[in-house]
């Protein structure tokens, strides 16, 4: 339960959640009334339903919702809106010049490109790891399963200095890479390593519950009907885990795009080569170039909103997928 709980916002919604969010009215009536009338009412169009008396039985609706909305407004929404408000004070030309300047575009390429590479790596290895952790037994499995969440709990700055130490020229793993002529620290490869670390839990934790729920009987049936193992993967298992897999991938990508703490230690922060977009915002701020910082921040925010929207669409998809299956 705890596992499901902690990753609920990372994983496709469960059935209960789904029932409550998609048809809240039906859910409520089922718990309160035993008569068959609500079933009848449900088939009526919304406007034809009579108003339901005292639907909110429990107290505190106004207080808790009011507080939650006010809190989110003050801490999250108004501050974020401030970025767009400030950006809207610029002329379009000004905004365009800043956000498409050579140095800024170079950071987009690094941030979005390397994040993609890291998220793809996590998608591939995460799929293998989730499969192994759910299906096989091997010594130390519990420890490996438990440690998956480490990037989630370990401060990014700590991860950053640890990874830099490992992959530096004299480092534990770095010495081998440097011997082969691969510069792992202070390069894009370093950024890639840090972003892979940061996004590691998402694909695994999104896939695990889905793989656990997967009916072994369906696979047995598939094998009985003469399907080879590959055919079963392709036609039975893969379609079932696809939405969760894509959700995990997008979450890892979203996390990597915004990541700052672990990257700045290992990247070396060279303009045009290893400078990420969040860092250029910090640099603009240090030089009191607020207009530049605001414009680039607005672009980053829009990018994260788009990824978040995509994740929401994916979750809707996996919800409808779950319904179709059951």
């Amino acid at each position, binding site marked *: 339960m705890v596992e499901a709980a902690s990753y609920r916002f990372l994983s496709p919604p469960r059935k209960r959640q789904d029932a409550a969010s998609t048809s809240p009215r039906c859910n409520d009536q089922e718990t309160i009334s035993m008569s068959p009338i609500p079933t009848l009412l449900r088939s009526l169009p919304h406007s034809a339903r009579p108003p339901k008396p005292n639907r909110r039985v429990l107290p505190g609706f106004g207080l808790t919702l009011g507080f939650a909305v006010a809190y989110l407004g003050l801490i999250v929404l108004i501050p974020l809106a401030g970025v767009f408000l400030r950006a809207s004070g610029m002329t379009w030309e000004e905004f365009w010049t800043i956000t498409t300047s050579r140095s800024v575009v170079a950071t987009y390429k690094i941030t979005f490109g390397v994040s993609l590479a890291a998220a793809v790596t996590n998608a591939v290895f995460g799929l293998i790891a989730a499969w192994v952790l759910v299906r096989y037994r091997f010594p130390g499995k519990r420890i490996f399963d438990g440690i998956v969440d480490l990037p989630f709990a370990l401060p990014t700055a700590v991860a950053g200095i640890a990874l830099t130490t490992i992959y530096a020229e004299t480092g534990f793993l770095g010495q081998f890479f440097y011997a082969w002529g691969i510069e792992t620290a202070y390069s894009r490869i370093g950024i890639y390593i840090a972003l892979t*670390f940061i996004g590691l839990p998402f694909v695994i934790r999104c896939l695990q519950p889905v793989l656990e729920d997967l009916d072994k009987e369906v696979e047995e049936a598939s094998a009985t009907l003469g399907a080879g193992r590959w055919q079963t993967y392709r036609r039975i298992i893969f379609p079932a885990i696809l939405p969760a897999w894509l959700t995990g991938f997008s979450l890892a990508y*979203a996390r990597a795009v915004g990541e700052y703490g672990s990257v700045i230690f290992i990247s070396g922060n060279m303009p045009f080569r290893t400078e990420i977009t969040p860092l250029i915002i910090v640099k603009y701020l240090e030089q009191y170039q607020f207009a530049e910082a605001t414009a680039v921040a607005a672009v*980053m925010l829009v990018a994260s909103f788009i990824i978040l929207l995509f994740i929401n669409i994916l979750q809707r998809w996996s919800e409808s997928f779950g319904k179709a299956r059951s």
Partner: protein
Amino acid sequence: MEAKKTMHAPKLHRFRASSVPRTRFATTEHPAVRWLLTGITVTFLTVFLLFPLFTVFHEAFSRGMEMYLASFDDRFIRHSIKLTLMTAAIAVPLNLIFGIAAAWAVTKFDFRGKSLLVTVIDLPFSVSPVIAGFVFILIFGAHGYLGPWVEKAGIQIVFAFPGIVLATTFGTVPFIARELIPLMEAQGRDEEYAAMTLGASGWRTFFKVTLPNVKWGLFYGVILCNARAMGEFGGVEVVSGSISGRTNTMTLQIQQLYFDYATVPAFAVASVLAFLALVTLILKNALEWWSHR
């Protein structure tokens, strides 16, 4: 084909013998494949997770226990620890109250825009931490919307403690709410309805019925939120100005020490936070194991 074979008695034995491996691997992989996949997983997780964790403690103790302990005998490091503890002591309770209120509203009532509210709770998670600090500079900074007003009132928010608390709170908003919502959703509303029917007040219902049901999930949420609050970096760096001995939190102090080539003290401070992360993970697994039993 195979059905035909079984009809001929003499061939039955051969059919069985040849089909044994096929049925054995019909719903699992060949042992060699299993070994390969397990090997890949163990290597991947060891390289990416165990090595960094090990490195933190290895580097912190590389010059021996005495040097490790001596690292904490530094005014700036002590101040950074104090500042981090104070920040978490404000940010975590704020997010605890918010988490409980949001979870109560979302799981015990039906209203329009519920899924929008849930999405907004997740928002800080996908926003870059740098932006989390930047937004408060835009509001309270010298050129910010409320900058002149704040200055007139004599309060310093940016490059000071309040700014650090704001950026940390922003970054850790989702954690407790997201822990509670699925738990309380799964509990349903029947027990609360029963309590109300029996005449309990709203507060009594919450403390005697709802809270005992979710207390361990809530506990883990608080621990996770605390670990994240203490580890907050990007947002705090932007908003605090990183003034050693004044606005440096633990993570900022780590950065400063590391860039000053003070490796042992940097990893010594990092080891404290890594230990906190380990405790968080162990607790999560213990609670999971306990609830599965």
